[in-house]
């Protein structure tokens, strides 16, 4: 089982993850149409690029937009969640040792205690996001089962990971479950809402171009996100 999960399944899940995301991106761009969307994407390139970059940049800055500033608590949760979700698996010592062993390369790594903190942060952020979904009527109404499922899928590798790391109970069981959860997450990303992994950038760039080229970008200073 261990061999399968770290071997063929790892290959398959990474393959699906990368190819799936590339496919989603290509599908997105091919679906755009200047006349239907009413955005002259290929004209006024400098305005388009500027609009797209501004639209991505301000939204990737914590508290960089009015919407982020209006919702400070939520913004805090979203940013620490995403930092934890991305940084922990990529820079974890254990992962990089495995990477080196299997595929012959590795990244810079973080200490074990940093990884522990990030893991707890991710779990806590998700707990609070779930509570927020339940507590706010305007969020509760629009929430469906998929929203909880996404949060669950995202947090599962972290919970199983930390249990394995601290060898709570059967180490091998948690380890295999951890890797399975991670692989399920990778496979799910291109097919679910988690495709915002790349489609966030695509959608932000598109609206940024819309504002940059058409909706005032060539007249004013650009939309104050």
């Amino acid at each position, binding site marked *: 089982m261990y061999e399968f999960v770290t071997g063929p399944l790892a290959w398959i899940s990474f393959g699906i993850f990368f190819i799936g995301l590339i496919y989603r991106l290509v*599908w*997105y*761009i*091919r*679906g*755009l*149409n*200047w*006349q*239907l*969307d*009413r*955005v*002259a994407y290929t*004209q*006024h390139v400098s305005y388009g690029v500027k609009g797209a970059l501004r*639209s991505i940049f301000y*939204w990737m800055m914590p508290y960089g937009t*009015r*919407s*982020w500033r*209006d*919702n400070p608590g*939520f913004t805090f949760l*979203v940013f620490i969640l995403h930092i934890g979700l991305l940084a922990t698996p990529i820079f974890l010592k254990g992962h990089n040792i495995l990477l080196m062993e299997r595929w012959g390369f590795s990244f810079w790594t973080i200490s074990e205690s940093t990884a522990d903190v990030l893991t707890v942060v991710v779990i806590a952020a998700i707990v609070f996001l779930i509570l927020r*979904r339940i507590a*706010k*009527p*305007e*969020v*509760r*109404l*629009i929430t*469906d089962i998929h*929203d909880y499922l*996404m949060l669950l899928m995202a947090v599962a590798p972290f919970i199983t990971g930390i249990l394995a790391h601290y060898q709570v109970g059967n180490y091998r069981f948690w380890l295999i479950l951890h890797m399975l959860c991670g692989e399920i997450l990778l496979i799910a990303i291109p097919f679910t*809402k988690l*495709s*915002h992994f790349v*489609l*966030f950038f*695509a*959608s*932000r760039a*598109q*609206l*940024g171009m*819309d504002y940059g*080229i*058409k*909706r*005032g*970008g*060539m*007249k*004013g*200073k*650009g*939309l*104050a996100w």
Partner: protein
Amino acid sequence: MPEGKLCNKQTVDAKEQLDALLADKGGKQYYEEMNHLDVDKKALRATLKNVVRSRFKTWLEICSHCGLCAESCFYFLANDRDPKQVPSYKIQATLGKLLKRKGDVDNAFMQECMDSAFSKCTCCTRCGVYCPFGIDTGLMFAYMRGILFSQGFSPWEMKIGTGMHRIYRAQMDVTTEDWVETCEWMAEEYEDDWPGLKIPVDVQNADIMYTVNAREPKHYPEDLAEAAILFRVAGENWTVPSEGWEETSLAMFAGDGAACKMQVESVYDAMDRLKPKRMVVTECGHAYRATVIEGPYWAGIKSGQPPVESIHYVEWVAEALRTGKLKIDPSKKIKEPVTYQDSCNYIRNGGLGDVAREIMGYIAEDFREMDPCREHNFCCGGGGGLNGIGRYREQRNVGLKIKRDQILATGAKLVVAPCHNCWDAIRDLEEIYKIGIRWSFLKPLLISMIDVPEHFKPTEEE
């Protein structure tokens, strides 16, 4: 396939059809017929396939249901934070469902969609500015209106409006003769007070081709005279086209793409004919949006730009003040607190926020911003054609509360509203909520405070 006599999937291209619709007061028969209108599911599926592509599909799919759009929507706030007014909910319950069911929906569902698309969204696109993913629900509702229109589910006034554009190339039954006569009449009417006043029709190669909102010749012809006075004082070489003078587009509000194209092409044809250096659009938000921002795309112009550089009236005013073509008498500046209504269509969606401030700097001593303002401003409450739809009057009036409170918070009793829709909505909110405010376009304010050259001064009667 049952189709009503008045409510059907046909477009209104003949005067008899239009007259029949107009004779049906309040759309009583029209809406009754709508209850029996069949959904052409095959056509609907085809329309969905054409309209809902990767952009909208992505928006509907990746929406994390985080609810940040809730407070961005003035309907959510005006309706006591009703969760059913959250933009994400509204679009998922309409376009989202329509797509999931692949167009397999019934009459009741289509009517629900129409009610949402017209009475729960003015397409102000503010939510798109507050969504981390850049999901522009207002924009999706604008396209949703088009899908509904193709199936005959359109409010009565919208159906009439599209017919007007198709038949008269104007949102009202103003013919070429009516228009030209109104221009002549206004010039004569005001000539005593403003010697030499002219409204030049069809002059070629003018610096400015001026275009208007059909409401002006039809209901407020003095607006036309005021425009003429200001152009004259500024020494502009200007003209109006005898045809292609109408900028507005109820067809845009209704989602009748073919009529949108016909309408803007009439203006672009006038540009071709008269070859002006620039076009100036009157003080109207959606007119500018339709003809200058969206129009080129309907007309199939790849650059996305109108054939001739086109500017909104506020841009012309700011330029005239900046270059000294219009000079404000400092003693006549507005002394009382005054605020400015940012129109969604040329501020958020047109980038003219700074231009509006520049003007206020010249004409007001105590200018007070609404909160929020500029591209973050709330819709007046009457956008997207809502002012004109009887069926949704009550919902519109509830929505006006947000603008009322914004204005009250400034302490200003005068609201500058250089947009016909905003102007109407603010007039109506005063009528309903009686908060003791006045509202104005820029033209009458400017005329009351500019330095008038000697040769153009009103002649003394005594």
